[in-house]
């Protein structure tokens, strides 16, 4: 015998499923280097993408981070990556993003705050690296789908000593 979901629970499962599918698609586009599609179709025009410093642990407004891109600089990052101008991504590395622990923290109707864990494996130029982090997304609801307005990846590494650099989009 099965216990039926309440109406509220069913709505939550549907929302969680939509959010998860959205994040999985984002991961796939990034892994497939379909960066312009990702930028055009999945982000808001006021996107902010940040990776805080590893010795700060989390977002601190006053601190310097590793990445703090507005839309213009993110667009530039994408064009550089796709045009082969990024020395250390030419030839392109292969990446594989594992998204898990997707959790809707708050649902404000038009916006969702979402947490997820991510491991990004990167292979290329004789190296294999793994970036492990906790993501926070602010998603803007757009019909049945979403756009990302805020995208923060807090790395769990103490340092990027082994990785040397962070040349991909996490």
């Amino acid at each position, binding site marked *: 015998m099965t216990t039926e979901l309440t109406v509220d629970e069913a709505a939550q499962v549907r929302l969680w499923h939509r959010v998860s599918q959205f994040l999985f698609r984002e991961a796939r586009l990034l892994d497939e280097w379909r960066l312009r599609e990702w930028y055009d179709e999945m982000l808001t025009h006021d996107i902010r993408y940040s*990776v*805080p*410093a*590893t*010795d*700060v642990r989390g977002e*601190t407004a*006053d*601190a*310097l*981070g*590793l*990445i*703090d891109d507005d839309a213009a*600089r993110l667009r*530039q*990052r994408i064009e*550089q990556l796709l045009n082969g*101008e*990024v*020395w*250390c991504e030419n030839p392109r590395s292969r990446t594989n993003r594992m998204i898990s622990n997707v959790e809707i923290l708050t649902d404000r109707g038009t916006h969702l705050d979402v947490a997820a864990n991510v491991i990004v494996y990167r292979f290329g*130029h*004789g190296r294999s690296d793994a970036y492990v982090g906790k993501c926070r997304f602010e998603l803007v609801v757009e019909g049945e789908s979403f756009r990302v307005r805020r995208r923060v990846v807090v790395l769990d590494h*103490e*340092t*990027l*000593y*082994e*990785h*040397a*650099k*962070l*040349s991909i989009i996490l």
Partner: protein
Amino acid sequence: MTIEPQRPVGDPIVVDDFERLSFRVDRRAYTDDDLAARETTMIFDRCWLYVGHESEVPGPGSYVARDVGGRPVVMARGSDGVIRVFANSCTHRGALICSQPAGRARSFRCPYHDWTFSIQGDLVGVPIPDGYGPGFRKADFGLARHRSDSYRGFVFVTFDPEQPRTLTEYLAGATEYLDLIDDQSEVGMEVIQGAQLHGARANWKLMMENSVDIYHFRALHKRYVGYMESLGSVPPRRRGGFGRALGLGHGANELPPAAARPLAYWTPMFGAEVRPRIEATAARFVDRFGAERAERITGTNRAVLIFPNLMIIDAIAITIRKIDPVGAGQMAITSVALAPKDEDPDIRELRKSHYLTFLGPAGFATPDDIEIVESCQRGYLNRTVRYSDLSRGMNKEVPETTDELPAREFWRQWDRLMHGDDGHLEVAHRGEMQGAEAR
């Protein structure tokens, strides 16, 4: 380990031939494990080494723990306000007495047996003291204090009790550049929270060379130059610039800015809103220092190499880059941003933003520097080509920034120290002119 000559006479690593205007470095200098071990004893155990900036230990009890010259140390400000640098190792059995990278404390307690040391380094607590005889004196077991000193807020340490030079003597001509940095605020400069901790699979000296090499800029950093142009950066208002040897291995490049400087040099990429504030700051510098020095402080970029492993790059932001060897083929890099304590919040945001555009493991330039020095290290695996060439500018009285004089100054001091020679202050070497003198 023994300190013996590890190569036969007549087989030098640095081949400095002014007659032929040729300067070559044997690539074993980047790959040889014995030479890397010898660098530890002949260079890092003897030189003054950068520990950190005074602003990182702002008040009594504040401390940072980090590795300097391969050794774990603690830099702490005592309750008396004095900054001391200690060996981060318990005098009892050796465990780290501080495992937090930074913080504030009244004392350090070794977790092994609870020996407790004051922030001044005195041993103040020993559990079960009746296990020691009457000859045991706590005063004999204080933390080992290293000889340290600071210049304009930059704290250095030396592990050589017989280091003959004071810090100021050791810094030689580089003090002029630390003055140009520290003069940027009347109330002092500070390290911005958030360090970029990364590395590279290459010999540490490659990153030192890279950091004073302007020749590579337009080739390797096309994407950064393109981005800056897209933001509306303007060509320098002055042409020129020059490289300098500053003595004892230190060197610098000085050049007109190709982009804005958050301190007091506005270009359209900063936006119209902050222009009046930045120009007002520039005017205050003219009042304080006179037009010529104000222009040098506010309207000039510089990259300063302080031997052996500190780089300060003052351009679109100021970065302090500490580069530590980890054997021959790996380095650790610590980069932080330095800024005026009293900086306008909007301008601080611009500084941080433009810092990230260029610098750090995810900037639009540094990753390419990392990739290229790793590429050099890989290239050295083919031992057929024995030497790297660093002769650019030996044919000129005033070497330009695209020449390699600062790197030669680094290598000449490296060579002297590796031979057990203490180095000497004369900057002009075998006829090579110092940029400043010829200027």
